[in-house]
């Protein structure tokens, strides 16, 4: 069974239609890259999947593990195993990182009928993951994303993902604003989570991330729908030729 099935999805933001009949199927263990020019609807797709209030699905359907995703609140989607790594992680002064991570983990465990972890067990779980993400313990005591550099914010997103072990991870431009070294750390984190049962959607603008995290499929999103799909060679072609030839092709159809 597919983890995610999106059919003829139309969605609006502030009354403006951004997604215009998008179709996408993601099977277990698959990594899909979604590329496309600015304004094509990539981030809208990510926000719609996570359940942001002001993004409205007007028609079409999204099924996650066979169930209707649109009906679920954001926290229910997260507890069902969907994770969004934010393009712009939100700063929350006064709430420390440990508190957020532990509250999130326990909320999800509780929803699965598992026992909550205590402080000791939590530290045991997070330690190795911090090593992968090259995050120091001092980082855990800081307020969520407050005063973090761009790279630290993105590493923090991936750290959360490693801890929560989602079944479907949507990474929204997790590579943007990263230098080569930070990109390698982020990619190592993501790759450590690759698993035959876990699927990923990488929303990205650049091909360089896909050199480090190899996708099984590459899709081009333009004008609110997927206009071309292929394997990773498509990403290389896009890198070399840009998007114009595809958008023109799509417009001609």
């Amino acid at each position: 069974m597919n983890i995610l099935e999106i059919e003829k999805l139309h969605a609006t933001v502030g009354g403006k239609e951004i997604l215009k009949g998008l179709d996408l199927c993601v099977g277990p263990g698959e990594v899909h890259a979604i590329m496309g020019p600015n304004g094509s609807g990539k981030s809208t797709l990510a926000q719609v999947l996570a359940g942001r209030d002001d993004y409205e699905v007007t028609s079409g359907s999204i099924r996650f593990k066979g169930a209707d995703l649109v009906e679920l609140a954001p926290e229910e989607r997260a507890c069902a195993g969907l994770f969004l790594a934010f393009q712009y992680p939100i700063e929350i002064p006064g709430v420390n990182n440990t508190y957020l991570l532990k509250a999130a983990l326990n909320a999800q465990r509780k929803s699965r009928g598992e026992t909550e972890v205590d402080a000791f067990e939590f530290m045991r779980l997070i330690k190795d993951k911090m090593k992968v993400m090259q995050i120091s313990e001092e980082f855990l005591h800081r307020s969520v994303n407050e005063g973090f550099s761009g790279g630290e914010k993105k590493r923090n997103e991936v750290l959360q993902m490693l801890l929560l072990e989602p079944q479907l991870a949507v990474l929204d431009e997790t590579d943007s604003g990263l230098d080569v070294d930070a990109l390698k750390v982020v990619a190592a984190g993501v790759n450590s989570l690759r698993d035959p049962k876990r699927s990923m959607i990488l929303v990205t603008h650049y091909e360089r991330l896909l050199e480090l995290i190899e996708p099984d499929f590459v899709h081009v999103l333009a004008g609110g729908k997927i206009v071309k799909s292929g394997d990773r060679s498509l990403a290389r072609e896009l890198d070399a030729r840009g998007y114009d030839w595809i958008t023109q092709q799509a417009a001609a159809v």
Partner: protein
Amino acid sequence: MSTAQITEQFDDLGAELPGSAELDAVRRTALARFSELGLPGRRVETWRYTELSSLADKDFSYVAPVPDSATLERASSLIAALGLMDDRPLSVFIDGHWIQSLSKSQPDSAITIETATPDFSVAATESALASLNTAFAAHSTAIRVSGTASAPLELVFIGTGRRLAPQFRLKIELAAGAKATVIQRFLDLSGSGESWLNQVADIEQGENSELTLYRLQSHQAEQYQTTLNRAALAAGAKLSAGSVELGGALVRNEFDIRLQGQKAHAHVFGMCLTGGHQHSDMQIVIDHQAPYTTSRQDHRAIVADSSHCVFNGKVIVQKDAQHIDARQRSDNLLLSAKAEVDTKPELEIYADQVVCSHGATVGELSEDQLFYLRARGIDAELARGILTTAFANSILDRFELEDFREHVRTAVHTRLPGRIES
């Protein structure tokens, strides 16, 4: 009750108040001043958002009787529930009366506390409520600090309701170089009906003295309280005043601080958490009268239901007071569409070498932050609780005395909507 009726009450009961003929004359002068001014309300600029005239309709008794033994017993269990530290001196006041049997002193040569017949005088500019206080306050409690106090002093004020309007007078004097922490807790016996505690505290700090003055106000829902803290700081003196307002129907806490000597410093911080139809008003005036004086004001309000919070922070910099640094912040969180906040910074600056800043925000919880937490699996109610708690913590973290800070934190957290376990 009109001011005329209050005057009548003084004529009837005034004889019960202790003191000489001279003191009686002072009380009568104060009463005349009160009658002239009346209960403050919206027609007075500094009372623009808080109206006390409704108190005129309540037939409060301004001379409170001495509590009976049943009251003492109930008060005793209320105090036990506070979990106060054993090693601290404690003074308990019920309806304004000092209760020796519930208080305890610790051998500490640096600090004395004494309740005595007052030695009032009345300034021509005395406010209505301070005048009322002078007229009816039976005693004056004086705390004198001459060295470094070995432990914080706990003052617990318990109200018994019963339509009493105790007038409580406090004096805190720190000699040069003295250091002390004074904690004031306000609470009531439950189910006791309305009351109004009107408190005046005069604080005098000698050179280089340091006073930490904390306040936790957790009155029952029907209570009124007005407090005027008047402080004068000599050179190098430091005052750190932190308050948390949780209860009461209508509460007003005023600070009138004069920085009279060079390098004197005042930090006034606080928060109020209101719900229902509560009204909480914080008024701060910091008067920089000497050069190189500094001040900080930090206030936060969490306003739920149909409640109303008022903050007015005023900084005055006198003509010859150069090199002043004065900062003020007021941040307000509205948890309901019917909640109301009035926040106003006021600057009166007559010197030119001055750094003054002020900032105020009034807003709701951030949708972006809520969504971020929910996208991690945290349900909406808990997410709101986490964000509200974080808003409160930035003030609570400023209380340096750990046991008091954590006590206040628990008191605040249990009252927050969508409370969280830490």
